[in-house]
Structures are given as structure tokens and as C-alpha cells.
């Protein structure tokens, strides 16, 4: 395996609330993403997925404190100052594919003008003809039709807006792409299309891709590895084939989440996720877990990408 593009080591994010409460949005996250690999980070809404993305981009609000390390090449994203983040990281080392492309694009300017601006800002291209050509090439890379380049964002369908946002994210040739809920609100065909486009960027461009999503079907289609987040903690990291096929997820929460899909059992996990400001001492999932025992009041140690006292173990592993 090649050296990872992004290594996250013990990343934690705390929000300090005016009342003096501390919200544990992300706790002790460890993972790597390599070139040509897609890691999907899944979990319920409000589990801290998007906060993790903001931490990587240095876009946390002022009342947040991040600890730990996140290394992209030789840059520590958490220690970097705003100048480094703005001049070398955002767009150049990390390309962001936003949650709602229609809101991400500037509404009063055409797609072409936004692409050209980004080309000028991120690459050394100069001269009107060269910039125009580079912008068209960028649109083509994301399969954005040339005929729509002179349209404004409101004239684009959801799928086209998504491609425009992807084209913008790809211009800087960033080794890491970060897609935050790229498929929310799109219909199934568009989800497949968007996800396949992203996958193509990973395969052809040898980029590393971190997809944050709650759409398990989309994750299954795109991911090489799955990271499952619950109440701010990554509880399981697995190979995607094993996760969706056999032997299946090992953490009871991942199992419940997968079982809730309409194409599977369609049975919800009982109860609701805990408050991030009021987490139990032990395993945060224990109150909803059918395998919970008194041991679960202590925090399980992370082993083999799994944080659980009573994981589902396959027969051959147990032997």
C-alpha cells in the first residue's frame, strides 16, 4: 500500500458553549486515506461527520477547539495558520465538493466565469484565451456540458450544479477530495451518476477521496473502505466489500444501521443517539445495544479498527 495522503491521528473537536457546557463533537478519530482510495464516513445526522470535515479544512467556528493531528503530506492541518490554509491547503491540497452545490456556487455569475476565476487563482494560467481553454477543460473533466457554461447556477438542474461544483473542486489538482454529503436530496439516478463521477476521479486521477454521507447505498457504490461514526467516535473501520457483503459489519451499531435499510430488514435501531454534550462514560451505543453487558460502562479499547466489547465475530476469526 502506498503512503497515505491523509492521516488523521487522534483528532478531537470540542465546542465550548456559552453556558459552559462542552460538546464533544469528534472524539479521538484515527484513519488514513491513500491515493486511489475512497473512504466513506457514514453515520446518523448530528454524529459529528461534518464537524470532522470542517476541522480538516480549518473552517471550525471560533468556539471550537481541535486536538490531535491531521497530516496531509508534511502539513499538519490542525496546527497550520490561516495563511497556510488559505494559500496552500484549501483548493490546492484539499478539493471540497460541497453538500448543496446550488448554494455553493455564486448565484449572480455564470459557471464559466466561476471556473475561470478558480483557474486563475489556483493555477499559473494567464492570458484570456489560455484561461478560457483551461476552464473548458476543467468543465470537461467533471463531464459538465460545454453548452451550459454560460448559464447561471439557478438555470442548472441539481445534477449539473453538482458537476459544476465538482469541476471547481478538481481545478487545483488536489491530492485529496473531500465530499460532504454530495448526494443529499438527489434522486437515485443522479446519486448513481454523481457517485460514479467521483469514483472516476479516484480511479483515473489517483486521488484520495473522503466521502461523508448518511446514504449507505451511495457509500456501497463508491467506497473501498467504510468508517462508521457514532456520537462523535469512529466505532468501526472495515473493508467495504466485507461490510456490505459477508461477514458484514462487526460493530452492533453498524449492523443496526445496515439492517435499517429498506432493501434489508427495514427495522430501526431502538432509541435515539445520545446528546454530544452529555455522553455516557462507557460505550455511547450501549443504551441502544442488544449485546450490552455491565462491561459496556467502560470505554472499549480500539482494536483492528473496531471500538466494541462485544463485536459480531465470524467463525474463522474466533478459532
Amino acid at each position, binding site marked *: 500500500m502506498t503512503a497515505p495522503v491523509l492521516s488523521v491521528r487522534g483528532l478531537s473537536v470540542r465546542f465550548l458553549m456559552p453556558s459552559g457546557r462542552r460538546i464533544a463533537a469528534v472524539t479521538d478519530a484515527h484513519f488514513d486515506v491513500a491515493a486511489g482510495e475512497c473512504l466513506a464516513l457514514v*453515520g*446518523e*445526522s*448530528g454524529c459529528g461527520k461534518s464537524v470532522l470535515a470542517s476541522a480538516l479544512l480549518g473552517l471550525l467556528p471560533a468556539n471550537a477547539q481541535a486536538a490531535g493531528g491531521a497530516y496531509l503530506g508534511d502539513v499538519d492541518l490542525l496546527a497550520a495558520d490561516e495563511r497556510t490554509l488559505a494559500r496552500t491547503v484549501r483548493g490546492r491540497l484539499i478539493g471540497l465538493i460541497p453538500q448543496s452545490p446550488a448554494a455553493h456556487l455564486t448565484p449572480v455569475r455564470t459557471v464559466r466565469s466561476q471556473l475561470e476565476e478558480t483557474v486563475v487563482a489556483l493555477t499559473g494560467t494567464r492570458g484570456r484565451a489560455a484561461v478560457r481553454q483551461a476552464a473548458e477543460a476543467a468543465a470537461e473533466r467533471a463531464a459538465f456540458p460545454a453548452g451550459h457554461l454560460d448559464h447561471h447556477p439557478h438555470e442548472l*438542474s*441539481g445534477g449539473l450544479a453538482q458537476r459544476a461544483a465538482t469541476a471547481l473542486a478538481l481545478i487545483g489538482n488536489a491530492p485529496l477530495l473531500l465530499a460532504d454529503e454530495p448526494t*443529499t*436530496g*438527489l*434522486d*437515485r*439516478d*443522479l446519486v448513481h451518476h454523481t457517485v460514479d463521477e467521483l469514483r472516476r476521479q479516484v480511479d483515473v486521477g489517483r486521488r484520495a477521496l473522503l466521502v461523508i454521507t*448518511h446514504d*449507505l447505498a451511495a457509500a456501497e457504490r463508491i467506497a473501498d473502505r467504510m468508517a462508521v461514526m457514532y456520537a462523535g467516535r469512529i466505532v468501526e473501520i472495515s473493508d467495504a466489500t466485507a461490510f456490505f457483503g459477508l461477514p458484514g459489519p462487526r460493530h452492533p451499531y453498524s449492523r*443496526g*444501521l*445496515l439492517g*435499517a*435499510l*429498506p*432493501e434489508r430488514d*427495514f*427495522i*430501526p*435501531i431502538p*432509541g*435515539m*443517539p445520545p446528546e454530544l454534550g452529555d455522553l455516557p462514560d462507557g460505550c455511547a451505543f450501549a443504551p441502544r445495544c442488544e449485546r450490552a453487558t455491565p462491561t459496556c460502562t467502560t470505554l472499549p479499547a480500539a482494536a483492528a479498527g473496531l471500538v466494541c466489547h462485544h463485536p459480531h465475530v465470524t467463525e474463522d476469526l474466533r478459532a
Partner: protein
Amino acid sequence: MLELQAITAGYDRKAPVVRDVTLSVAPGESVGLLGPSGCGKSTLARVAALLHRPDAGTLLLDGDPVRRWRHRAPCAQRTAIGVVFQQPRLSADPRLRLTDLIAEPLRATGRRDEVRERVAELAPSVGLTPDLLDRRPHEVSDGQLQRACLARALLLRPRWLICDEMTAMLDASTTAALVAAVEEYRSATGAGLLAVGHDQVLLGRWCDRTVSWEKLTSTEAGE
């Protein structure tokens, strides 16, 4: 019966998004309406929910034609229908606590005295705990807010439920929980359901039958 007959509706008389569509839901039946984004299925759902006056066509609610829409609709017809929308954030008043959000339909129909009892009865059935009921929308997650919006839709015990992409913003477990809550209500009351969405797998699993938008509008396929 909830009968939509030859409905034409839209936002521009010259270019209606819904053209001559007929669809009916029998009492106790659940119908899933499938279509791609932007096809007009939500507009049709708004017509069925008395929220959008169609340009042409009739809506029959239990045999009675609907003549007035939105706030002008007679109370008996309005309260026979419960609606859940796609985006809980946009369909919840940010200033109301979840209790008041859920209780609003009772207040609006002048039945304040039933509030306490009904909210206490409904909250557990959609999975809301008492501490959540005291919060305002910005203090809860999308999933929790959508649970409250579902409780609000069920408050007046409607005979018809319209769920327009109710679960599009939600994760798998919350989706399954909300669908289970709707089905529990329907099996207790025999209410009919029109569920609009784009997820064939979900609607196929959830509803008695699914109709695709193309089928409904195939008469004008040559356009």
C-alpha cells in the same frame, strides 16, 4: 377515497408542471408515487394536501369535491389530511418548542384543552423523549425535528396522510423508525397514505402499490 381527477396544476398557466393526472387512494391504502426530481410530483402532493389550487381537474375527498384551498378550505376537509414535508427545518417555526410545534394544529382549531394529553400520547409513538419536547428546533437534529413534524401531522388523527419525500434528508435508521411510526398509526386508524419519493426500494417496501410518474403522464408522452 382520495381522488385526484384530471389534475392540471403548476405555477405558470402557460406551462403547468402537472398535466391531466389522475390518481386515487382508497381508504386504508398506501400508494407510493415515484418520480425523478423536478417532475411535478411534489406539486401533485400539494394539490392532494389542499395546499395548491389546481388550474383544472377535481379533487374528491371521501366523495366531496374540494372547492376551496389552503386557509380557505373548510376545517373538516383541512383536518382530514396530515402532511409531512421533505425539509423539517423549513416546515418548523424556529421559535416554537417542539411541544408547541406539535400542538399547533389543536390550537389552530380551538381545542387547546386536549393539547397536554394528545402530545403526551403522541411523543413516544414517534420516538420523542420529554427532554426533547422542551427544546427549540435549532437544538435538535434533522431526524428529531422530522419526528416532531410527523407527530404534528398525526395530531388531529387525519384520515389521509401525505408524505412528500419525508425521509430524503434522513439516515437509514431514522427512516425506518419514521416509516414504522406512520404504519403503526395507519394500522390503528385505517388512514390512507400518499407517499411521494424517488426511492423505489423504500416506497416498494413501504406501500401497498407504487405508481411511477411516467405511467401517470404517459398519455402526453409524445410531447
